[in-house]
């Protein structure tokens, strides 16, 4: 049952990724402007251009180009970046950890902020506290990450300058890292001075990304909690003498969390999508920031590679959430 569900999901995942590959390929190929002409100095001859076109495979038909590219992708060869003249996969792997770390910190913050608001709102249901939480989460939800980022830059970068507003890490620091997972490595190596510097750079973009998601978690979880709190077993726990907070944390949360979990999965992909512009805003050296440069430089192989990696990330998250849901939901587990 579970295995069958997993295999079907895997198949639809492959179809979705194939669709993404087709769409991005078509979009990029109809682009006016010759990327090859932009690479060469003004005096280049037609023979030079033809040679370079052949080198990047641009002299073949679009369908041929697509399948050459796709067969490369399947083997892990995403081609060579035109603007940076390096292997696309290498470039992507170099930047992806920065984005993953940012998104993970943002997710943790969203769950922490949203969860706290939901529990507080459910405990104080029907009071002014709940109304205040509703208003706060409504505003947090309506304002997108881009605007939150700008608000935070003004508040904590200019008005009360407590955080750095650009970059991933202070440039004067010596980095002893072997991988690009700076934050993770700084903790493993017990270099907490670097952890602090990294977090100081990450905090504002992470909050900007986290706030809309925190609002959704708060609204949805609070709703489920309120429903669960009227059920018999919760009432029984209350009769046994547990305090309301204990009742919520020990009894209600477990069952109320499931609907929220599925939604958080989809919303987490939106959060990762948001890193593109938020990274730009804070000059954070992640994948999204590089993607915008790639578009501006018309670096076709790099754009294709980055879009596909984002898409892969999205479908993997959805798969993980789907599987987690199936494992946690007793109805599906035994069905």
């Amino acid at each position, binding site marked *: 049952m579970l295995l069958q569900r997993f295999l079907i999901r895997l198949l*639809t995942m492959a*179809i*979705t*990724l194939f*669709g*993404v590959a087709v*769409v*991005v390929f078509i*979009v*990029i190929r*109809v*682009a*006016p402007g010759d990327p090859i002409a932009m690479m060469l100095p003004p005096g280049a001859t037609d023979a030079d251009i033809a040679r370079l076109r052949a080198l990047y495979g641009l002299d073949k038909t679009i369908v041929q180009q697509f399948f050459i590219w796709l067969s490369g992708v399947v083997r892990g060869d995403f081609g060579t970046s035109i603007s940076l003249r390096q292997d696309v996969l290498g470039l992507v792997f170099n930047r992806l950890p920065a984005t993953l770390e940012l998104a993970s910190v943002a997710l943790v913050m969203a769950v922490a902020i949203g969860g706290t608001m939901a529990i507080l709102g459910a405990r104080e249901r029907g009071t002014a506290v709940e109304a205040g939480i509703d208003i706060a989460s409504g*505003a947090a939800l*309506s*304002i*997108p990450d*881009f*605007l939150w980022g*700008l*608000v935070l*830059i*003004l508040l904590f*970068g*200019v008005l009360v300058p407590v955080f750095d507003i650009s970059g991933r890490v202070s440039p004067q620091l010596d980095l002893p890292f072997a991988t690009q997972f700076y934050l993770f490595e700084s903790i493993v190596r017990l270099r907490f001075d670097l952890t602090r510097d990294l977090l100081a750079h990450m905090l504002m973009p992470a909050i900007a990304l986290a706030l809309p998601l925190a609002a959704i978690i708060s609204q949805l979880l609070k709703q489920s909690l309120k429903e669960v709190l009227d059920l018999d077993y919760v009432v029984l726990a209350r009769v046994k003498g547990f305090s309301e907070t204990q009742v919520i944390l020990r009894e209600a949360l477990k069952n109320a969390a499931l609907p929220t979990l599925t939604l958080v999965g989809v919303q987490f*992909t939106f959060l*990762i*999508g*948001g890193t*593109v*512009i938020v990274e*730009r*805003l804070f000059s954070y050296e992640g994948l*999204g920031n590089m*993607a*915008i440069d790639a*578009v*501006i430089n*018309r670096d076709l192989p790099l*754009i294709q590679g*980055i*879009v596909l990696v*984002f*898409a892969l990330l*999205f*479908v993997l998250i959805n798969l993980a959430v789907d599987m987690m849901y199936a494992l946690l939901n007793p109805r599906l587990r035994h069905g």
Partner: protein
Amino acid sequence: MDEARISRHGSRARLWLAGGWLLIALLAAIFAPLVAPQDPLAQDLMLERLPPFWLGGAEPGYWLGTDSLGRDLLSRLIFGARIAFIVAFAAAFAACLVGSTLGLIAGYFGGWADRIISRIVDVWMAFPPVLFAILLVAVLGTGLSSVIIAIAVIDWTRFCRVIRAETMGQSRMDYVENARIAGYGRIGIMLREVLPNVVPSIVALLSLEMGIAVIVEAILSFVNLSISTDDPTWGGIIAEGRLSIHQAWWVLVFPLVTLILTVLSFSQFGEGLRARFDPVLR
């Protein structure tokens, strides 16, 4: 009962506040040449980075101050509202038309139509939207129509998903079955019976989408990929403000406040309208 009345009052107040701001902004956009105190493009290096009127060093006639080229900020915001509203209306209606149509078809007919449309939606959802928008505008070339097309191409799925689900729910209702027994055709039922019942959702989504379109336009301007660089846009002003943030904070603050108010108003206006239209909530 009391709670319902309070929430109805609240929703009416929201509707009026949001609608009021949008009306002011819309009127300012339409009559921009009449209400703007200065020429939004006029540069004057003698007047660079003037602060807003309540601070020392302000010049009369430049209410919100000037940017680093001496251009009047208020006038640029007013003219920027034109582009914001054109993009909001055009892009949202285009996305709505495509998405609602496909959602209605998928939800009402089900089967293969639904499978194909849902699969396309899945593919679309696997793109990071902002990156997709930037890519499309880069491909189509900068300009107003490119921005509108890009937003519509990306955001139709928002309408499609909601309308599909709603149509599915409506299609199972008795009145649809009755219409079928009465001998109405399938397309007739879809358009005459089901469509009117999903209109409240469409209206709410439309308003929400207008707010999103304004943001996307601002983001595109921010990365310098929107309209030509001459025309003032909110995002363009924000990009300038971000650069001169330590010398002239007002160049960032005022367009940011304008954007936030506009986005909040669009989403609240949509919610308010939905509450008005929805027979269950009413």
